[in-house]
């Protein structure tokens, strides 16, 4: 028997760390590049074109018990293989929309309450590691680092009865296409971008700089200029409770300073932000980054959040006393640049506007924003 599994159902399983066996029928190179991540997932990668003669041999390598999910790039091949398995007496599900859909799936999770009835939500893009946020308070909403699946944010705000008034990008992103401008256009909200990242930007925006305060209903967003990942990187503090660190500081790592090819220049800025600016802040602030890299960073409830004080205790990148060693860590042996990062930056600057299919293709694969 075959079933269809939606990305929503898969996200739920990932959050609950449910055991799952994934038969990934994409070609080996794509599988090695990125796959569905989860704390309790086992994998077998057999490209679908190696199964065209039949699945009899494969059946021996599959678990006799437990759920099997067949996954491919767009759904077609996984459905075919699931059907072949069914004929051989093996039950499985195939992922509707394939990895393409998984890459775009956003899971809204509540991170916490804000004073006087407000709420803060984190939108987790498990298939890529991007994190977006929505502050909702007294019928007003502010969105931070939205991805290009703007429909999800619009529908969510509508459901909560909130009007989107402010849309922010913590910095000019190189790993994903921002949905910020589009959201602002559709809703009439103000779109904010740090001016130091916007030298080459081709559209109008509102500057977000150090020491600003933006009111959202009963909540307030304070800004701190925190360069190092990019020269314009800006941090937001929500109601003195949550610290949105963009790509400067992650749960298990720190941001890489080289995505605009300027690692050397920005290392000192990064060090100052992490070791001075952030150190002055209260340890109880809950850090909410713009990305996560590994499942270890995911909490039991599926959110990615940790107290700043805890990070100063545990995060290796925050505990390198020697400046030379720090410099080495963030400039040497960096992972390969994220897929299509140069073109993604151009899109976010408004220089090029490829169609949706092209945008989708550019974003395939994991983000590589961190230094590990």
């Amino acid at each position, binding site marked *: 028997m075959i079933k269809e599994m939606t990305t929503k159902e898969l996200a739920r399983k990932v959050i609950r760390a449910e055991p799952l066996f994934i038969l990934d029928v994409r070609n080996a190179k*794509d599988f090695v590049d990125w796959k569905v991540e989860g704390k309790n997932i086992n994998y077998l990668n057999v*490209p*679908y*074109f190696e199964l*065209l003669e039949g699945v009899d041999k494969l059946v021996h390598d599959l678990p006799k018990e437990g759920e099997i999910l067949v996954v491919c*790039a767009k759904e*077609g091949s996984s459905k075919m293989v699931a059907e072949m398995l069914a004929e051989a007496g093996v039950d499985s599900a195939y992922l509707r929309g394939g990895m393409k859909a998984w890459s775009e799936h956003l899971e809204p999770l509540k991170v916490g309450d804000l004073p006087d009835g407000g709420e803060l939500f984190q939108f987790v893009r498990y298939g890529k590691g991007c994190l977006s946020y929505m502050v909702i308070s007294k019928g007003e909403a502010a969105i931070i680092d939205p991805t290009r699946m703007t429909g999800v944010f619009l529908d969510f705000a509508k459901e909560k009865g909130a009007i989107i008034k402010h849309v922010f990008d913590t910095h000019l992103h190189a790993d994903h296409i921002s949905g910020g401008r589009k959201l602002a256009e559709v809703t009439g909200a103000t779109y904010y971008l740090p001016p130091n990242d916007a030298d080459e930007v081709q559209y109008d925006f509102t500057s977000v700089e150090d020491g600003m305060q933006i009111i959202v209903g009963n909540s307030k967003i304070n800004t701190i200029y925190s360069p190092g990942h990019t020269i314009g990187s800006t941090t937001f503090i929500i109601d003195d409770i949550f610290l949105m660190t963009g790509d400067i500081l992650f749960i298990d790592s720190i941001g890489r300073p080289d995505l605009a090819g300027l690692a050397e220049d920005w290392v000192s800025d990064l060090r100052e932000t992490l070791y001075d600016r952030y150190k002055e802040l209260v340890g109880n602030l809950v850090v909410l980054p713009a990305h996560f890299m590994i499942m270890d960073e995911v909490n039991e409830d599926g959110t990615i959040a940790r107290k700043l004080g805890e990070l100063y205790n545990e995060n290796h990148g925050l505990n390198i006393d020697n400046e030379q060693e720090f410099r080495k860590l963030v400039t040497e042996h960096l992972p390969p640049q994220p897929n299509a990062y140069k073109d993604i930056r151009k899109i976010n600057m408004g220089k090029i506007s490829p169609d949706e299919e092209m945008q989708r*293709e550019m974003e395939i694969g994991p983000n590589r924003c961190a230094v590990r």
Partner: protein
Amino acid sequence: MMEADQMLDAKGLSCPMPIVKTKKTMDTMEPGQVLEIHTTDKGAKADLTAWTKTTGHEMLEQTDDGDVLKFWIRKGE
């Protein structure tokens, strides 16, 4: 332009159909013969290349005019 013994028009077909049809067509051909495949599915490029290697055929040439991808594959022994 490369010569071919047979031409498979797989334009407009999505994965897995381009390879499924390629295999079916190849099965009817003699070793040494060349199959020319036209497809619009971008994913077919990596998959066809890997499939050709795995099955012992030879990828002779590939072109991409932005919309249509063309492949010439010689059947192995």
